[in-house]
């Protein structure tokens, strides 16, 4: 009892002294069972406002499952997910998305037969209001909404650097441009939190390096908090302010990248028990 009270006072103290960043998203006590298998066991996770945090772990650690809990695709067996101060546990994906959680996909999932601009406009769906009647009659309000939507789409496409191909079908874009378009489409939701699922998959080292700058720019200029799932350790270590490591459905470490690099359990999870060398030394 005394311990908890101590902890509470300590928290309160820190709040008073250096006001910790409010949370953009938090998940507490998340557990997911598939039948008898515990895919995620009691994981706590937070994304600070305007923070960049990463989730890593060996294959099968439960990263994607955890991602799917955040986005509303899976309902957790236990635990709560808060977006800002709103409880979004078990809400359907489109609701969670419209409340401010946007994502990109590991294997790019654009709307192939729509133009880049239309892709971004779909991201604005929940922000637009025009229904069937107003669209058919093309009322002034609907036209203004469409025009503003297109302007914002144009702005986002310029922001990610593909303004020139706004009218191209997204399937005809180059791989790099498709990745950028996915980010633009996600930003169209005006999200509070942006989840990037292995965004550097298929990129070469130079592109990955540029991507790190890009993530910072997205955070700074668009004011979003970013959660990254990533395999490329050099990207993770350079971009993240905090790294969380999952292994076999459990959180085994959390902290700034330098700490994680030298964490015994993390090294063990990645390299096995006999591994004695830290990774990341190849840099």
């Amino acid at each position, binding site marked *: 009892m005394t311990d908890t009270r101590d902890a509470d006072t300590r928290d309160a103290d820190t709040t008073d002294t250096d006001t910790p960043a409010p949370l953009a998203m938090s998940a507490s006590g998340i557990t997911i069972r598939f039948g008898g298998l515990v895919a995620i066991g009691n994981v706590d996770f937070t994304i600070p406002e305007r923070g960049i945090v990463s989730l890593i772990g060996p294959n099968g650690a439960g990263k994607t499952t955890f991602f799917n809990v955040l*986005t509303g695709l899976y309902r957790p067996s236990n635990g709560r997910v808060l977006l800002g101060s709103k409880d979004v546990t078990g809400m*359907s*994906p*489109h*609701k969670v*998305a*419209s409340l401010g959680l*946007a*994502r990109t*996909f590991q294997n*790019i*999932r*654009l*709307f*192939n*037969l*729509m*133009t880049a601009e*239309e892709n971004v*406009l*779909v*991201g604005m*769906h*929940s922000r*637009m209001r*025009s*229904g*069937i009647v107003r*669209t*058919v009659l*093309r009322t002034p309000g*609907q036209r203004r*909404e*469409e*025009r503003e939507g*297109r*302007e914002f789409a*144009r702005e986002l496409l310029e922001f990610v650097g593909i303004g020139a*191909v*706004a*009218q*191209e*079908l997204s*399937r*005809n874009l*180059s*791989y*790099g441009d498709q990745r950028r378009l996915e980010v633009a*489409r*996600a930003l*169209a*939701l005006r999200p509070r939190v942006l989840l990037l699922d292995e965004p550097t998959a*298929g*990129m*070469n080292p*130079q*592109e990955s390096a540029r991507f790190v700058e890009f993530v910072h720019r997205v955070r700074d200029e668009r004011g979003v908090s970013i959660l990254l799932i990533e395999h490329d350790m050099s990207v993770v270590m350079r971009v993240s302010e905090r790294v969380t490591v999952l292994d076999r459905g459990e959180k085994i470490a959390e902290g700034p990248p330098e700490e994680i690099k030298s964490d015994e359990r993390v090294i063990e999870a990645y390299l096995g028990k006999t591994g004695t060398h830290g990774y990341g030394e190849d840099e």
Partner: protein
Amino acid sequence: MATTAAPATDTRVKNGDGTGRGGGDGAGVRRRHRLGDRIWPLGFALAAVLVFVLYQWILPQAPAGVSDFFQTWLPMSTINQCVIWATMAVGLNVVVGYAGLLDLGYVAFWAIGGYVAGWLMSGFFGQWQINFFGHPAPGQESGIHLSFWLVLPLAGLFCALWGVIIGAPTLRLKSDYLALVTLGFGEIIPEVFKNGENINGFNLSNGVKGITPLDPISTGPFAYLGVPEELGPFDETWKFVIYVLIATFAVFVSLRIREGRLGRAWLAIREDELAASMMGVPLMRTKLAAYAVGAFIGGIGGVAYASAVGGVAAEDFAFSSSIILLAMVVLGGMGNVWGVMLGALVLQWINSNGLAKAGEAINQAVGKDLNFPSYNFLVFGAILILMMLFRREGLLPETRTRQVLREPDRGGAEPADAELEGERR
């Protein structure tokens, strides 16, 4: 080279805030698209006017040979059927072509629309006597008689409601399963009408006998302009105008919606359902909207059909009609309203008149006695197979779809591509 390219880019940027759909190479492409956008509506309007003038004023005065030729190959009743089927195909296109939901039971909405017309525009419900701007035939004053122009939106809304009722449980299913359940509903609803002559003592549909005759269509203020005050079974040329207006409405609505927020959401769902929901598109509501819009158009098509044949009968709404409508959508070019219209006009002409007359001509030429109309499904099948072999995208495909079917898929080679590109930069 660079100097010539620069001004072109400038104009494109200046026009860029408009709604132009031009591609990479600027203004030229956009102008062509704009023209292309207008050719079809203009062509459709022109064709409609020509047909009307021809049948209303020229043919009655033409020499017997000419008018006989038209009477044989393209009578007015056939044209009306074609336009009505085209309306319905445009409605089905919203569900299948836009939203990508395979619907094998679309005839259900057609039937519901037809019966709404039957209930509200005839002496069928003799126990009531309601007349609201209706024009009952003399001696038919009992029953419900509403104006045709009122029945159209009522039937549309009633069908849209049924679209939501049918869609709410079924749209949770995906692709093949959805198709099977819609097929079931397409069978159930005409079956209900076929057996609905004694529902606990209440006669809903008059069973296999159907509801007939329907009230003539009143033309209201247009009577002062020389249009007959009431359009009965024999005023086919004037009815043609009404059916063209209905078809135009269907086309207009589906094109407008296609360009807006809802149309984009439909396309997005057709392309990638999961990604769409993750972008904040509510799947159920958006799919239901597609169903409702499709059903609305099916409903007004059903009213038009009932008024064209002068009644409704349950056996008109067979499963084969759903399939023919689907064939029209596929043949014309899924997703493209004008293609679908064209497909519907062609197929319905073959179905109702063309095949029979061509068969007669062939029989005469070769001296055989084959019953060609009975082979119409064989002909349909052959057309579909040929289309799948040589023109999978349909007669007039949506620009988007043409790309997919004509170009190799780059999906697999993507990562390698990207690496090469990185090197180049």
